[in-house]
């Protein structure tokens, strides 16, 4: 009875002491755990392709576009705007390949690879973008020739890897899309000229003209004007270099 009376008389004091003790414990706990911080990665880990069916809840298109937005804004979180040179491009390549499994018709990912992520300050990283665009466009070169051209442009102008650019340019020239411009067929010649291989460039342009004469291909008027300008311009140069096509081995590549 006396004990109970003592308890009721001092309950407010006990409560205050207990409150202060637990507050002190909470502060102590926070001091000991404040080193645990969220991982501020720039490119997030690539999702597991086996778990797509769970995460997408049956609507892969919705999931694809949510992830596309996420990868476009990757790194730009918590007030950060990291430069593209800090991005992990190998991981980006894996992201792009993964996203293609969700939707292989959309042009969002090749667009981001060509016009956004290829602008990195660390130029060797763009090899991953060229590799991705090559894989993307090679599935259907007739439809995706534009993305193959972007891969060629990255290899030629950003990486300055003319061997790779030439390989990709030949793939570009194989397209049979009637709406693709003439220069897509002519592009290997441009790269050959950069490599000072006038013979191969000559054969490519010669082949285009033969195809035109035989009616295999049809050019628009403006395309013919461009081809005429190209030939005239090159002829002047070839004359000054004393180029003799008879010395070329036929079919040089």
């Amino acid at each position: 009875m006396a004990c109970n009376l003592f308890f009721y008389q001092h309950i407010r004091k006990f409560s205050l002491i207990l409150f202060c003790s637990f507050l002190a414990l909470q502060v102590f706990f926070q001091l000991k755990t404040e080193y645990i911080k969220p991982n501020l990665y720039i490119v997030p880990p690539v999702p597991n392709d086996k778990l797509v069916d769970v995460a997408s809840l049956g609507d892969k298109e919705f999931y694809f576009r949510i992830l596309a937005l996420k990868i476009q804004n990757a790194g730009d979180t918590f007030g950060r705007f990291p430069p593209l040179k800090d991005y992990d491009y190998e991981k980006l390549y894996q992201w792009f390949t993964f996203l293609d499994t969700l939707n292989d018709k959309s042009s969002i990912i090749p667009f981001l690879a060509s016009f956004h992520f290829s602008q990195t300050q660390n130029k060797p990283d763009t090899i991953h973008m060229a590799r991705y665009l090559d894989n993307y466009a090679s599935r259907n070169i007739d439809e995706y020739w534009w993305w193959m051209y972007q891969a060629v442009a990255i290899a030629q102008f950003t990486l300055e890897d003319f061997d790779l650019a030439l390989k990709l340019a030949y793939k570009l020239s194989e397209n049979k899309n009637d709406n693709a411009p003439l220069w897509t067929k002519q592009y290997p010649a441009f790269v050959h000229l950069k490599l000072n291989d006038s013979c191969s460039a000559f054969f490519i342009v010669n082949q285009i003209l033969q195809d035109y004469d035989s009616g295999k291909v049809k050019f628009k008027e403006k395309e013919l004007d461009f081809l005429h300008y190209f030939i005239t311009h090159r002829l002047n140069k070839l004359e000054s270099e004393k180029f003799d096509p008879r010395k070329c081995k036929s079919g040089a590549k």
Partner: protein
Amino acid sequence: MKTILKYILLTAIRDKLYLGILFLLAAAFGISSILGNTLATEKVATSIVYIAGSARIIFAVGMILFTCFYVRKSFDNKEVEFILSKAVSRNQLIISYLLGFSVVALFILIPIGLALFLINANLIGLAFWLMSIFFEIFILISVAVLSSLILKSAVTSILATLGFYILSRMMAFFVLTVDLPTKMIDFNNITASLDSLLKLMSFIFPRLDLFAHSNMLIYGINDYQFIIITCVQSLIYIPLLAFMSFSDFNKKQF
């Protein structure tokens, strides 16, 4: 039956929850359009998919909440007993509920369809998407009515229906897991029983993961097989749930 249908529609119009769904849909349209426009390219297509995806979630959750609260409230304020005292059979009451809620759902589908039409969704794809989402919601309404009849509390019936919806949307994963070769997993008694459990679930739950794919709103219909599957699944599952509801409700004593 007509009177009950009219009554459900009238209470839906008066209900703040129903109006809340329409308000949330309007907010989702706005946010989806803004988010879609932040993408570097394919802004319209992305807005369409975001609107469709968010509308489906709001629509499904909203209809589950509305149905479960409505049915439980009807039991709690003795409305059901009053209706049954008139010349209405128990089975007729269930059918009225199912039809009434599906008409309520149709009214919500109109602004969704209109919004997607106005931002240039593929027309054939939109027609089939609306049909598919209507069937999906009809199945959910049937589950919500059944769970509200079986369970005594509105909250538990809502949780049960939401759980059912999420599991049904994950069925593709379950089916894939059941098909995994035993060599790929550590096969023992536990995994074997889990495998059997998943197989059993895949028989009981509907394949809602095949319903209302938002890619048809952009690219149109490439494969009509999904449409047939959606229709067949609905024609099997809605009557199944309706008969379960009849069976349960006929046993109930007031």
